[in-house]
């Protein structure tokens, strides 16, 4: 059982979505009870469900009364009550949503005060991810608490055994209609990589486009052939924090993401910190379930932190909202 991310602020009364999967060999029938954060009201808080062996369902619970929290951490408790007893799963989720704001990619983090930041820790180091959207751009700020910024090693840029360097990698994909079978022959996502350069600048590389085959999308390619100057990017460091800021034009994303308030899409972020924590995976914080497709979920570019930890999938449900107020 898993609570998905909330794709708009809860004070607006959206749905809380719960994923349930029957991992047993026989069908299961019972009730799923969702307990929300204190002072919230769900209407109703119980759903009756029947799951065949191996079946997964996505259940909607209406948030009749919710509260936005500055911490962006929302504790839920899911209880499955069946003929053989009950099981409870406790989980924190977060609001994964980009408010509307036209940001300048200019190294000023104060412009991001109206975002809805998501923070998580990896080996005592914090990563904070904020997103915005405007009519023409999807924008991202990743603040990485790390000891040192290691820029892209230009001398090794064409090598497949390149020296490791700091980077932020993110994936964007459309949410297909539920009745549409998944296209297993195509990657179905965009992937970008943000790096600092040795001259104090920054670059963006487009690693994956949706039509690529999944195995092809996962394979490393020389980065210098993938540079994408249509994405505005800035990387700077201040007070022990490295900031990666970028704006991706919607027109670069085809129809994967339309600039419409309320729209949902799939998104995730990996932070590569080779001289510190190694790989930091937002999907772990979102409690995504492991999936057999995970080995092909990310492009394994040369110079990334792939040696110790395998990332989970790239499909955290995200939303475009109007405002956090």
């Amino acid at each position, binding site marked *: 059982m898993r609570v998905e991310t909330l794709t708009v602020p809860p*004070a*607006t009364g959206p*749905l809380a979505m719960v994923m349930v999967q029957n991992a047993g060999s026989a069908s299961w029938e019972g009730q799923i009870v969702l307990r929300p954060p204190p002072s919230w009201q769900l209407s109703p808080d119980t759903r009756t469900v029947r799951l065949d062996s191996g079946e997964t369902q996505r259940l909607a619970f*209406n948030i009749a009364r919710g509260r936005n929290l*500055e911490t962006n951490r929302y504790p839920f408790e899911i209880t499955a009550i069946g003929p053989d007893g009950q099981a409870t799963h406790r989980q924190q989720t977060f609001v994964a949503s980009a408010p509307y704001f036209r940001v300048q990619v200019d190294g000023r983090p104060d412009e991001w005060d109206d975002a809805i930041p998501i923070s998580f820790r990896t080996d005592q180091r914090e990563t904070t991810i904020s997103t915005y959207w405007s009519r023409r751009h999807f924008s991202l700020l990743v603040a990485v608490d790390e000891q040192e910024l290691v820029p892209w090693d230009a001398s090794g840029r064409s090598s497949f055994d390149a020296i490791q360097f700091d980077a932020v990698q993110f994936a964007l994909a459309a949410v297909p209609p539920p009745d549409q079978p998944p296209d297993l022959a195509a990657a179905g996502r965009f992937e970008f990589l943000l790096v600092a350069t040795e001259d104090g600048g920054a670059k963006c590389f487009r690693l994956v486009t949706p039509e690529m085959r999944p195995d092809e999308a996962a394979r490393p390619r020389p980065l210098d052939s993938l540079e994408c100057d249509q994405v505005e990017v800035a990387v700077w460091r201040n007070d022990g924090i490295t900031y990666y800021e970028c704006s991706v034009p919607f027109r670069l994303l085809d129809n994967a993401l339309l*600039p*419409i308030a*309320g729209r949902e899409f799939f998104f995730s972020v990996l932070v590569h910190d080779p001289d510190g924590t190694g790989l930091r995976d937002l999907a772990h914080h979102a409690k995504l379930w492991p999936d057999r497709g995970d080995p092909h979920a990310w492009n394994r570019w040369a110079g990334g932190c792939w040696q110790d930890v395998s990332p989970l999938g790239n499909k955290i449900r995200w939303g475009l909202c*109007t*405002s956090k107020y």
Partner: protein
Amino acid sequence: MTQSFYHTFLAGLVAAIVGVTWCLAGTMHANDADREAANEGRIGSILMHTVLVEDQDDQPMAAGEAAARELMAAIGDAPLQAVLVSECFEDLPWKQQLLQGIGSVIPKERIFGSSTYGSFTQRGTAGFDSVSLLGIAGDGISVSAALVTEMEVARLTFEDSEPLIKERLHAVGKQLTDKLQRTDQDRLMILLADAHSPKNKYLVEGVQQVVGPDFPITGGSANKNAGQTYVYFQGKAYADSAVALMLSGDFQVSLSGRKAMENDQVIATAKDGAAEALAKMTGQPLGVLAFNCAGRRGRLHRPEDEWTAIRQALGEDLALFGCYCAGEVGPLDPSEQVPGVLVGGSGWHVMFTVLGR
């Protein structure tokens, strides 16, 4: 742009224009009794017309002027009471140019409205760089308008400041209503405000403290995107403000509201809500107001599907003035209604109001 649009060229502007008339005048009276009464001068005419213009040439002033000219051509000699604007242009300079274009044709004191996430009529839907106008004219209807500025709730959050939000918006609601000229023929209040759901419920409660819990109110919260939140009063843009219009005259209204947050339910509830409001109208329907949630539209796999469902319920000929908002005012979904209270402020709703007689 939808297939049903046709194109008009005006001074280099390429704009898609749709015009729809709701008419209760001349030969288009609701029934024989109305026709007879009008002929005898006992009831006046009511004329309503909608225009939807999609600017494809980055000329908001020309788009506003084109829409206004189309509107006024349809209204003709009928006395204009008010024009309701739903616009989705980006940033204040463009919004002001649009208002300037509208105001070059229509007296500014008749222009009201708000920024929205887009508009729809029974002929099509439009998002960015579009404007829809509803003209209300005739001597059988009158419109009183009020404005309250400096509400000071826009940057307050519910978790920190709900009591203050409630206090301020209750006061704004009362102020707005007290400013309106009231008559014994008041039929419908239209409320447009910088009060994003769920704040809008307190604004409605403030109005209801004056007009009572069973008075028909509909409306929407202005586009809440940063830097885009404006209401329009007498041709000028105001931030952090609310506008109320009181429609009075010899006509009836019937209302319905539905809530949904997922594709199939959004489509089904839109159709149900539209059908219910239409079925409840005992007179001849003149046209429909639809204040819809931008979030609902965002959940559609195909944004036009909800509009198609609405049109199926209302028919292709009944005029429709719809807009996508950041919160809606009208009857809450049947699952959320409070006994004795006709309307509320909420989110994720589509609120229909049918005018007729």
